[in-house]
């Protein structure tokens, strides 16, 4: 990646890029940020789709996401022509099913896989699957070409590494050597599977039961021949993420754990030659002005007549103190993502759970209001 001369603004990102990926740890307001960016995209006249993972219920309702269709639903609003706003809530299982359908040689093969016990557990149990399917859905939507801008909210990953590692994780799983050896045509099987492998699987069966091992063997038998298609697809998805049409936006909250995770995330993206193009910091305490230097001695503050003023000053001191500390805390993160712009969204006096609320956050994101 080349060094950028100037920082891009969030407004430029949603006007010019095709894909904006919002990442960050859980509970920092990623979904809200993604929703707000999408609303602004539509307002700026782009055909926009937001892909969310697990929106809070009221926000989901506001976006018309009460049913899981895995297809974008349209949201009416005051968008500039030809702007549109669509929203989709990711259904990991259906996305995976569609992918199986796409790469199966015959409908029978697809049916066999879809009904396998192990396959039915993959979406819920194999870590990284949800992350990968979010990327897969993004790739599909991009491929269809019906949107100018796709904004993706990423799953609240336990470990930031999972996110970029997810496609490879899945293909590694599908390539599992031990189980694939077992499903090779019989004669090869006899030659290649050593006594050790059989003994190994017998031991595994002793621990978890033979049903589990049988499910796994059946799955790999049904999947035979599809790994190549899956691997190529995963590579294409990864490639799309590092293309210049894609922008990564890091979302953080000014809490110690969230900042630490954001720092880790930023360095991890940089290792993969992906730059953070903007940093959104949510829920910063607002500033109210300097604390007046009155009632500074304990005696003055303790006087009964001064009690009401002491309470007011104490409150301002609390709020200014936390705002200053948050600002100081942000410095390391700001340095790490430089020259990416840092966009501040203050702690609002209400929760965001409708289009108006998203619009309000959007004004801060686009710099129309200062946070």
């Amino acid at each position: 990646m080349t060094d950028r001369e100037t920082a891009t603004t969030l407004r430029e990102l949603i006007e010019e890029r095709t894909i904006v990926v919002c990442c960050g740890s859980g509970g920092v307001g990623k979904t809200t940020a993604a929703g707000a960016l999408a609303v602004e995209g539509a307002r700026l006249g782009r055909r926009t789709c937001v892909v969310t993972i697990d929106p809070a219920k009221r926000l989901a309702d506001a976006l018309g996401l009460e049913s899981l269709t895995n297809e974008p639903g349209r949201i009416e609003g005051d968008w500039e022509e030809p702007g549109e706003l669509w929203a989709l809530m990711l259904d990991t299982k259906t996305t995976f099913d569609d992918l199986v359908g796409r790469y199966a040689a015959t409908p029978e093969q697809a049916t066999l896989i879809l009904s396998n016990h192990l396959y039915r557990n993959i979406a819920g149990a194999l870590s990284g699957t949800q992350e990968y399917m979010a990327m897969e859905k993004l790739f599909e939507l991009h491929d269809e070409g019906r949107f100018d801008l796709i904004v993706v909210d990423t799953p609240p990953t336990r470990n930031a590494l999972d996110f970029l590692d997810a496609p490879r994780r899945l293909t590694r799983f599908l390539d599992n050597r031990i189980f694939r050896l077992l499903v090779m045509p019989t004669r090869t099987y006899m030659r290649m599977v050593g006594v050790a492998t059989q003994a190994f699987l017998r031991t595994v069966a002793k621990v978890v039961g033979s049903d589990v091992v049988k499910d796994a063997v059946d799955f790999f038998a049904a999947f035979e021949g599809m790994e190549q298609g899956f691997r190529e697809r995963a590579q294409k998805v990864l490639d799309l993420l590092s293309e210049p049409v894609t922008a990564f936006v890091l979302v953080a909250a000014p809490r110690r754990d969230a900042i630490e995770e954001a720092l880790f995330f930023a360095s991890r993206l940089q290792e993969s030659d992906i730059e953070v193009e903007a940093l959104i910091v949510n829920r910063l305490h607002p500033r109210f002005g300097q604390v007046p230097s009155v009632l500074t001695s304990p005696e003055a503050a303790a006087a009964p007549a001064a009690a009401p003023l002491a309470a007011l000053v104490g409150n301002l001191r609390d709020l200014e103190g936390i705002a200053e500390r948050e600002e100081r805390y942000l410095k390391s993160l700001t340095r790490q993502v430089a020259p990416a712009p840092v966009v501040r969204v203050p702690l609002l006096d209400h929760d965001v759970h409708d289009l108006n609320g998203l619009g309000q956050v959007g004004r801060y994101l686009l710099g129309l209001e200062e946070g």
Partner: protein
Amino acid sequence: MDPGAFCAQARLLIVAGKGGVGKTTVTAALARLAARTGRDALIIDVEGKSGLGNIFGHLEPLTYQEAVLAESGGPDSGEIRARTLTPDDALLEYLVDHGMNRISKRLASSGALDVVATAAPGIKDILVLGKVKQLERASVAGAPGAADLLVLDAPAAGHAFTFLASARALLDAVTVGPIRAQAAEVLEMLSDPGRCQVMLVTLPEETPVNEVVETAFKLEDQAGVHLTPVVVNGLYPVHDLDIDPAVAATAARVPLTEAEVASLRRAATFRMHRQELQTDQTDRLAQALPLSQLHLPFLFTTELGAAEIDLLADALEAEIAKLPDLAPLNLPEDAGAEAGAGAESEAAGAGSGADNPQPAEPG
């Protein structure tokens, strides 16, 4: 309720909540409170990445070996220890315990572990909980070096439910073998309020409140665990700020500039608005979830150290003192005659006395 009695309800307290609500902080405060009541507390970190050590000034990352985070402060206080217990740790120990030391490396390196874990979802969680159960048994037996209270910092968000429901899920998926036996034993521990209870943590905000209500019902109904009072974290301490700063300044005989008056007024308005919002949310929580609430203050700091944990432990202690005394729980047979039907484990397990009904369906 006496804080000692609170810490003695069960040997294992599992602290759960969505990301960002302060689960780890509450875990630390709870351990501190237990230590104050003379109990050695062991914090168990199942994700292997928590900042718990840092909070107590213990700079090395936590490991599978217990580390002392805070020494005992005297004969009446216990110490705080911590360790990790990740799925990988648990699996390795399980295999070694079952004489399968030699295949353990191969299981991980060949990727077969992923395949097995997918075929039998919850298997990793069961291994972790199985090990926790061992620690709980050692604690009950008073084994040398065993802690008096185990505080488990549960996986975040939706993972907490999957984690705690893993025993039931596994019993459905795996029909034979030692893992199944382990799941059955774990289920027995989780569903016994005298052995294990779950403390949910939330924030006084719309989304966290909705989520904690949903999680509480799911955990009771589907995972069969018992809940302590729910912790509402990060509440702005309530002050009466409905005062005109100009009037207050005159009363105090202090000169203020117009700009200062305006700053004080805006800050007071903001604080009062947040106070009102948090009251709305705690009221809403009380309506939707018939569990007592333990309120912890927002500390106006970004740093979290031993001093802050002490403040939170103070608050926790004061809140617990407000709870009614527990109905006797799991009485031995000779004392059983005293306990009426209504005082039995279900209601007491909800943590706030025998008159506490089981949660109704959320509205």
